[in-house]
């Protein structure tokens, strides 16, 4: 812009030109002032931080599975004494609503035939429901390695310190382990639909407001 050019402004012997010079001069003073303030207080002497370490890590806690439905547990309430039919079939009665979508697994692949309140590993060892991750990882070995390393699954608490490892069933439904879609939180406001109005006093409106 021509008005900002000192050469041209200097040629004009008008009051407007003088005012521009005064404003320019003040601007220079302001900039110098800011610079000197920055030199005086600026971060040239970078802070040296005191040495600080964190205490040793305690052992992690395995997060137990979520509370199971009292209506169905313990299983022996219904299954005790019942003859076992090992043939895969359409689920009925109380298990009508159980969606079984985990490969082509049938109940007794994981649940023990006789001890219904236990799970059974493929080598015949009985495990508690709380240790179900030992059962899952018989097939999902790669996931076990990654879970132990902290790359698969979820951890909460401290990155250094007490932490909980979420076990398989804390996130996945063992009968239908693929995550189901959930309702997302609302989207951000588009700049074009911002409803905010300035609530500041007129004398403060020296800056651009949206």
């Amino acid at each position, binding site marked *: 812009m021509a008005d900002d050019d000192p050469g041209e402004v200097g040629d004009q012997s008008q009051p407007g030109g003088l005012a521009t010079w005064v404003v320019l001069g003040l601007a220079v003073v302001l900039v110098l002032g800011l610079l000197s303030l920055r030199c005086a207080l600026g971060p040239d*002497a970078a*802070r040296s931080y005191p040495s600080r370490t964190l205490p040793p890590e305690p052992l992690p806690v395995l997060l137990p599975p979520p509370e199971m439905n009292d209506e169905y547990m313990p299983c022996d309430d219904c299954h005790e004494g019942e003859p076992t039919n090992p043939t895969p079939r359409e689920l009925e009665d109380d298990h009508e609503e159980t969606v079984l979508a985990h490969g082509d697994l049938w109940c007794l692949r994981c649940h023990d035939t006789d001890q219904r309140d236990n799970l059974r590993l493929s080598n015949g060892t009985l495990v508690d429901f709380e240790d179900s991750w030992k059962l899952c990882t018989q097939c999902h070995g790669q996931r076990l390695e990654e879970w132990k390393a902290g790359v698969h699954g979820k951890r*909460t608490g401290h990155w250094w310190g007490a932490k909980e490892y979420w076990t398989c069933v804390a*996130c996945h439904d063992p009968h239908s382990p693929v995550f189901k879609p959930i309702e997302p939180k609302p989207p951000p406001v588009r700049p074009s639909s911002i409803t905010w109005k300035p609530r*500041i006093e007129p004398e403060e409106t020296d800056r651009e*407001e*949206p």
Partner: protein
Amino acid sequence: MKNPERDEQLDAKGASRRKFLRTTAAGVGAAAGVPAAAEAFDFETFFQKNFRSMSDEEIDELTDRLARKYEKKYGKPFDVQATGPVDNVVFGYGLDISRCIGCRRCVDACVQENNQSRDPEIQWIRVLEFERERVVRGFELEDGNPYYDHEQAPAEGMVYLPIACQHCEDSPCTNVCPTGATWEEPDGIVVIDYDWCIGCRYCMAACPYGARHFNWAEPNIPADEVNTNIHPLGNRPRGRGVVEKCSFCIQRVRDGRYPACHEACPVGARKFGNLLDPNSEISYLLKNKRTFVLKAELNTRPKFFYFYG
């Protein structure tokens, strides 16, 4: 000091500083100008050193001052801790984009934890939605849509990429700051001294990731939702006219805790840890997974890694 409305306006440090200079210039020198402006700002804050130049005593004074100020504003006690970095720690973040379902739980947790303004709205994390077919050859951030509004997420054929501050090792934002108000801490966190920010927004222009956000107006946080555990370089309530951004939850991670977004993720897509620790989860995924950083061609060397789990 007597007028609470005036006190609220003190939050806009940049504005106060400019106003002071303007008044001083108009009043031909400090003697005439300062008494008039004295009501409008706090001298201790105005002459406050840059955080990096402060002695331990000055940092204690700062935390006390902030605690008093916020207690007065929000009517409840604040715990202000200027916790320093931990030795031999450089933070890194991993995000499994094959897991992210775009539910925005992380955004919500971040807003709550870090005292982001609710109206006008500021959100440090943006979750971008991409068509799966279009990202086969990489993510073009311009194609991402942060405004998706589905009833259920993830939507069919879509992938999601949450993006916030990448905490670059060679950060363009800190290089352009004219007042030295933003810098990288020894543990790799890029922080902002909100009292030294003058609101010029050079850093926003320099940031290739759109991670920085500007307080166009006085931020608005309901007093019952404000997080009272604050760090001066992190989640302290900001004022009008300053830039803010993700600090890896500096108030949490320096005490060893996970960031808020990490804890909120329902699918465990977020990983956090010490890059210098060979046994940390972040080191494991860098060694064993396919990872990439955004806009690697700019050589900003982000410490935020995306990976395929």
